[in-house]
């Protein structure tokens, strides 16, 4: 009997031991920060001069959401970034997945090539593209000049008209590999017989894709699509290290605005408000998309 109870006690104790690291990390570095930045978002707190946060309730949110023109710019930029980014990433990764799915020999090599940018850090991608798109000595402008399009050559990341789209291209290059792999695994899961049947019925390739492949890919398209949409809102690295939000405020995104408020203006209240509004948009969007479209997905970064 006493052996039994001590065994039980030991079991209980061991459970605590197994859970302890998880609980410590989750509470200290996740739960506490979330609550703490929630509190900060209801305060006025300039880290450079105030000793402690001063509670102001919702008035900080009101100011930011209603009157802060930089915040409005950040929201506008964010969506101006997101729409082409979502379209490019989705269409290119789907197109590549369908093409590579058709290939017999060499399909694996192409799979590796298109996935490769996923292992390149975002800041490395930013460095590479700012070199390629450099105004005077960049190879892309040189290419344009050499084919007689000299008037198109410009400082791609320095021109307010193109800077944001330069970031779209850079980020798409890096992220396409992920949805490509998701879609490719969908394409490869389609039974050969279904596609043969379509061919026998006289469907050309385009009809086969439209009426057989796309409908069967639906769950993959939803999962990948939601992932792209959520990720299109979490843009920090490129505006931070390629354009510094500029020129002017042309590439000021929500993440970067929150960071700038906190670490350049030391306005922790504003920074937390922007972070919370961004998080709210992201959570609402992922909830709504999952509710409407249904697959099992979560976003990262």
């Amino acid at each position, binding site marked *: 009997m006493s052996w039994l109870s001590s065994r039980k006690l030991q079991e209980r104790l061991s*459970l605590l031991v197994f859970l302890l690291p998880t609980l410590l990390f989750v509470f200290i570095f996740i739960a506490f920060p979330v609550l703490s930045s929630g509190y900060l978002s209801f305060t006025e707190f300039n880290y450079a001069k105030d000793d402690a946060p001063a509670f102001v309730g919702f008035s900080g949110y009101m100011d930011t959401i209603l009157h802060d023109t930089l915040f409005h710019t950040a929201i506008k930029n964010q969506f101006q970034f997101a729409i082409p980014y979502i379209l490019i990433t989705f269409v290119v990764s789907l197109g590549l997945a369908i093409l590579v799915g058709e*290939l017999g020999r060499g399909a694996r090599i192409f799979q590796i090539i298109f996935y*490769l940018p996923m292992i*390149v850090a975002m800041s490395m991608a930013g460095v590479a593209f700012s070199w*390629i798109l450099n105004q005077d000595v*960049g190879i892309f402008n040189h290419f344009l000049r050499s084919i007689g399009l000299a008037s198109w050559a410009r400082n791609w990341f320095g021109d307010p008209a193109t800077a944001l789209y330069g970031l779209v291209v850079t980020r798409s290059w890096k992220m396409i590999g992920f949805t490509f792999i998701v879609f490719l695994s969908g394409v490869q899961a389609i039974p050969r017989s279904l596609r043969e049947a379509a061919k026998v019925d006289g469907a050309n390739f385009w009809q086969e894709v439209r009426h057989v492949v796309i409908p069967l890919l639906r769950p993959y398209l939803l999962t990948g699509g939601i992932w792209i949409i959520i990720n299109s809102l979490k843009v920090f690295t490129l505006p931070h290290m390629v354009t510094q939000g500029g020129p002017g405020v042309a590439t000021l995104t929500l993440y970067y605005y929150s960071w700038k408020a906190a670490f350049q203006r030391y306005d922790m209240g504003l920074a937390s408000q922007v972070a919370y509004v961004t998080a709210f948009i992201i959570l609402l969007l992922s909830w709504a998309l999952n509710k409407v479209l249904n697959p099992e997905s979560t976003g990262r970064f």
Partner: protein
Amino acid sequence: MNGLRSFARLLSRRQTAIFYAMVIVASALFLFPPLWMLNTSLRATEDIYRVPPTVLPAKITLENYVYVLTQMQGTRYFLNSVVVTLASVLLVLLASAMGGYAFGARRFRGKELLYMGIVFVLTVPYIMYLIPIYLMEIKLHLRNTWIGLILPYVALNLPWGLLIMRSAFSTIPLEIKDAAVIDGCNEYQLWYRVMLPITRPALAATTIVTFVFVWQEYLFASTLMTKNQWQTLPVGIVWLRDELQTMAYGRVGAMFVLSILPIFILFLLLRNFFIKGLTEGMLKG
């Protein structure tokens, strides 16, 4: 009839050729940025800034690599990245193997609720953690230390590790556990000697997901490590670019190649693990 069939075959062969052509063009576009960095890194400075630029190096030189590794903080960035990545991976493995066992193979009150809470964390954008962690690290003097970067990285990756490890532990049949208990294993021996070896593929997936994340991470590294000597590679390369302005692209290229090399080799060796582990890790685990 015969003519029609051979016409159809010709058509499909032509179609395949067109597909190959399209995929090859796309591959060239995808490979261009890293290859161009490699190309730049092998040139002398005056060769890089020639106007008009040339496509191939006039002469291949390793001077940029030598410079980055001997004159700059290059090796220091490398060391920081290696230490932070290895420590984060090991801690995530340990914590998620322990926690995953508790959530996957044990029963206790409040388990589902606690687990749901941790999984919910996965959807929270990282920008929400950054400011409080920064303020906390100032108080604890953790900025510009390895541990100050490792701890948040472990916390950010732990939920993914738990997701992966929990599902691995939950598929282990109960008979194995019972047999081990009858053999006189205590709880820790049961976990370490009996259960853990079975979850090896899940441990590999957790390793890859964490490794790839930490090796590339920029938001926390650039904010928490404010001094040059504590920078990891993804942030260090930006310092390198800014410090030397436009003259630095050969060196930036060398740094680019050096920092991608380790993960690239790993990727080629374990590509199936990589693609499967990352895809699953990023979607659901």
